[in-house]
């Protein structure tokens, strides 16, 4: 049994095959256009994901803090000249933090909650001292906020008793190696002898110099916050939902709740601008491809005038003729998107082997998400159809007598 195509696809494919050079050229154009779009989209998506990943690699998606203290007027300001001085914000605990932590953990979209006690201290060794941020954490829980175990260069990310984890820069500055002792002194006069059980390199020199992780109880007692925590760090399932989660938490608790999207507003704006310019480029490529398909089909309609007339004389309706040219547009789009995706995949492979990070790893992975191929196929087919519309209508309106005579 032979494959027997219905009339319109049969004639459309035959016309395309007959148009050899034209078909090849327009297919090449569509392929190139689709390749550019798929390549760009994949590249920018990956790079953006990486930037976001790196930024979020060392910070929580959402942070809950106590509300700031403010001076309030005791009396109405009407008729009184008053000067309200802003208050200095002392280190305070999040009220009822266990309840708040439970509430946050139960909130939709929140995947992890970790209590943190943080305050200023000095790391002292011999004559050298460095200002650091003391971070009291539960190592197990904090790992789900910042993937510390991935950054360890020596030892493990675990705190216990007076065992602490410090950054590689601080270790270098103070000449500390694993299992060495380190004294921390606090402005309130307390101090403690720590033993370094792990050294991390988080990829940010400032943080490598400042963060000193100790146990939650030790930090609480050193910072005079017995039983309290200075903030709750949260991880959310969808990072771009962080602000929404923060808003909901703020409404539920009345506390200060910040998302990474607020603290990194500039980065977010930059990413958005990149997306906008990417969309602009994609739109122009789509328009150019559409014009290419349309112009080739316009020429094809003129060339096929006689054939259209013959088909009409043999009983083909206007809508059948319309279909023939619409199908040609759609086929060019669909086949172009297939080749274009292949070309994009090749480009990704080539460029990922050329462009590398400082450490020699590829800047982006040479992979193509199926959803981009599907998207390209869908868009290209629709664009093909749309650009075939004008030529197809012209063909359908053609007077068969004129067509045959010409």
């Amino acid at each position, binding site marked *: 049994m032979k494959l*027997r195509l219905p009339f319109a696809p049969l004639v459309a494919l035959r*016309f395309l095959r007959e148009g050899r050079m034209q078909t090849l050229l327009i297919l090449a154009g569509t392929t190139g256009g689709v390749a550019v779009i798929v390549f760009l989209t994949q590249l920018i998506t990956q790079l953006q994901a990486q930037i976001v990943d790196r930024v979020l690699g060392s910070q929580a998606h959402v942070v809950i803090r106590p509300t700031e203290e403010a001076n309030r007027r005791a009396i109405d300001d009407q008729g009184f000249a008053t000067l309200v001085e802003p208050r200095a914000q002392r280190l305070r605990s999040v009220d009822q933090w266990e309840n708040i932590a439970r509430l946050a953990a139960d909130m939709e979209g929140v995947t992890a909650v970790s209590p943190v006690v943080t305050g200023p201290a000095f790391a002292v060794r011999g004559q050298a001292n460095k200002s650091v941020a003391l971070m009291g954490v539960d190592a197990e829980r904090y790992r789900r906020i910042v993937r510390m175990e991935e950054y360890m260069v020596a030892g493990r990310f675990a705190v216990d008793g007076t065992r602490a984890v410090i950054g590689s820069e601080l270790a270098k500055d103070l000449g500390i190696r694993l299992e060495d002792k380190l004294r921390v002194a606090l402005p309130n006069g307390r101090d403690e002898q720590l033993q370094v059980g792990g050294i991390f390199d988080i990829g940010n020199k400032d943080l490598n110099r400042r963060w000193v992780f100790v146990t939650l109880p030790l930090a609480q007692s050193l910072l005079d916050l017995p039983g309290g925590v200075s903030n709750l760090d949260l991880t959310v399932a969808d990072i771009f939902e962080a602000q929404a989660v923060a808003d909901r938490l703020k409404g539920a608790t009345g506390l200060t709740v910040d998302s990474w999207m607020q603290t990194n507003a500039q980065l977010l704006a930059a990413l958005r601008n990149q997306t906008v310019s990417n969309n602009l480029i994609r739109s122009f490529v789509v328009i150019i491809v559409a014009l290419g398909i349309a112009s080739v089909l316009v020429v094809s309609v003129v060339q096929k005038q006689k054939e259209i007339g013959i088909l009409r*004389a043999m009983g083909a309706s206007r809508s059948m003729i319309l279909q023939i040219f619409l199908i040609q547009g759609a086929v060019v789009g669909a086949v172009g998107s297939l080749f274009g995706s292949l070309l994009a995949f090749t480009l990704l492979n080539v460029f990922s082997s050329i462009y590398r990070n400082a450490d020699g790893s590829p800047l982006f992975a040479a992979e193509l998400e199926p959803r981009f191929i599907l998207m390209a196929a869908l868009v290209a087919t629709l664009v093909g159809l749309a650009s075939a519309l004008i030529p197809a209508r012209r063909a359908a309106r053609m007077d068969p007598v004129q067509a045959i005579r010409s």
Partner: protein
Amino acid sequence: MSTPTIAPVIELAGLTKAYNIGTPVETEVLHGIDLSLAEGEFAALIGPSGSGKSTLLNIIGLLERPTGGRLSIGGRDTARLSEAEITQLRGRSIGFVFQFHHLLPAFTAVENVMMPTIIARGAADDEAEAMALSLLDAVGLKAHAYKKPSELSGGQQQRVAIARALGLKPRLILADEPTGNLDTHTADDIFALLREFNRQTRCACLIVTHDPRLAERCDRIVRLVDGHIAGPV
């Protein structure tokens, strides 16, 4: 001349055709044509160039609409038919043979013969292909069934065109100088073929020709002069 006992295949009454209506260059090319063709009738349409032969053929073939008068095909008044009905009527009951054969170059001979069936039924099927092959056999081209028109000679192409015109067993065959660009010998062959099918299927044939020798061999001669029927010679 046969006397039709049933409704004629085509019937024209006072048919006129004008171009550029309403403009200063309005020209009427057909001035009230009365003509009828019965089943099985084989008629030649002759006349000098510019007499309106092709226009008349196109109107009868439903490719153009007349300006005035009446055109009935198989007893149906075509003026009342919609565009879609006209297209369907054209596809199912009229077979065209054009002067320059007008085959589709992208399709093989057998596909060209099947094309009216494909259009009418939506797609080809085994029956249509068998039918097309037998028609090609009948015109002596069985061996060339899977060749493209460009691989066939002029006479062979015209025979494919005739086979195509017969594909849907039309009640009317319209041929516009089917032998116009062929040598005498081939022209005789093609003419004989048309005559043969006319006898077999009893379809009415209207053949435009410049060749008086061929016109002589038709049942009837319709002479068109300046848009009028000048009557049989």
